[in-house]
């Protein structure tokens, strides 16, 4: 995948060593803030607790990281892309919907349908939006992330996918 992301800037929010390594290997320039060609937002679920033991504060924190913060970042990214009259690609990465607590079930479900909604709203702006929900953190995850941000995935938008059999 050498050169697939040559010259593209990627704003990376959250951490995943496999994704960071794969994007750089594909030629991307990772940036912390400012305008960029791509946005990647990574947030994994908190350790699961039974639903009636989750406090209001824990619930809110999970919803903020898994949903609200992503919505705001995507909205800001799209505003910048539209005003600059260029397209772009957004990728959300998180934990599968049913493999953590009820907080993650809610956040991931919401994120998936948000992905599909804004993918259609922004399709003709050339801004693509996709989501990977997986517990895997190996090279396949990194490479799929690189593909989805690249122009080879120009016809892929509104997709919500996993990586392995357990996703």
């Amino acid at each position, binding site marked *: 995948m050498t050169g697939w992301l040559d010259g593209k800037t990627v704003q990376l929010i959250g951490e995943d060593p496999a994704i960071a390594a794969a994007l750089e290997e594909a030629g991307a320039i990772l940036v912390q803030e400012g305008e960029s060609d791509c946005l990647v937002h990574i947030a994994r679920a908190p350790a699961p607790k*039974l*639903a*009636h033991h*989750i406090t*209001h504060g824990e*619930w*809110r924190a999970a*919803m903020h990281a898994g*949903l*609200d913060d992503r*919505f*705001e970042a995507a*909205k800001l990214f*799209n*505003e910048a892309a*539209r005003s600059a009259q260029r397209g772009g690609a957004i990728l959300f990465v998180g934990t599968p*919907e*049913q493999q953590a*607590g*009820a*907080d*993650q*079930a*809610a*956040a*991931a*479900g*919401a*994120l*998936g*349908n*948000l*992905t*599909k*909604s*804004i*993918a*259609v*709203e*922004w*399709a*003709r702006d050339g801004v693509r939006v996709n989501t990977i929900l997986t517990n895997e953190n190996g090279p396949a995850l990194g490479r799929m992330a690189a593909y989805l941000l690249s122009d080879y995935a120009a016809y892929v938008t*509104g997709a919500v996918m996993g990586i392995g059999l357990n996703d």
Partner: protein
Amino acid sequence: MGLAMAIAFAQGGAAVGVMGRSIERAEEGASKIAALGVPVHATSCDVRDPDQITQAFNATEAAIGPVSLLANNAGANFPVLTENMSMNAWNAVTRIAIDGTFLCSAEFARRREKAGRGGAIINNSAQYIWTGFPGDAHSAAAKTAQATMTRKLAEDWAPLGIRVNAVAAGFFPHESSTSGNGAEAISPLQNMIPAGRTGQTYEFGWLSALLCSPLMEGLTGQVILQDGGESLRRSLMMPDFVPPREREDGPWGWK
């Protein structure tokens, strides 16, 4: 939609506690339910506030006894492009539906656990939870969260004997629905729906109450689609795509 559920529960013989943001609206609904001859209680509650929920449950249980069935209906919805959606608008729609459903359900589950008794929960979701809803992204997110948490809550609370299900509802015109209840607003919508008509709110109420009844003992974690086939239309037969930004005057527009 909540009133339709409450009426169906009352028709099945249940005492009904109505919790609403506005006490006036809650009492208005309660008086319609009381006409069916069952015990009714109305209380005000902001479902985003866990303390208010606890107080509302206390007041309801003091008036009509332990709550053994819960119907989560609180929701808000209005069409708006994501690029014009304020964080306040996003928070209002998502937190009423997502946090509200969770907080009320968790309060209910803790009470049932303490009482050593099971129960049933029904959540009001929507037919657009699998397809996205361009031009209504906050509600698209919120309604899917209700459905996906339904499955996990059902799993977590199966050992407590609490069943949790949801109805993915299609279009059921009623007084406060965005496209109104007038014949002019409804007829173009009927033409889009394979069943040839919009839904009747009592059909939604009946299904919701049925899912909570002992007839459905053993059914849990399910999301039941009730939309007259609306979400199953063949995409190859759909008209040209109109970007949400260019359909502000349409039936689900914001003008």
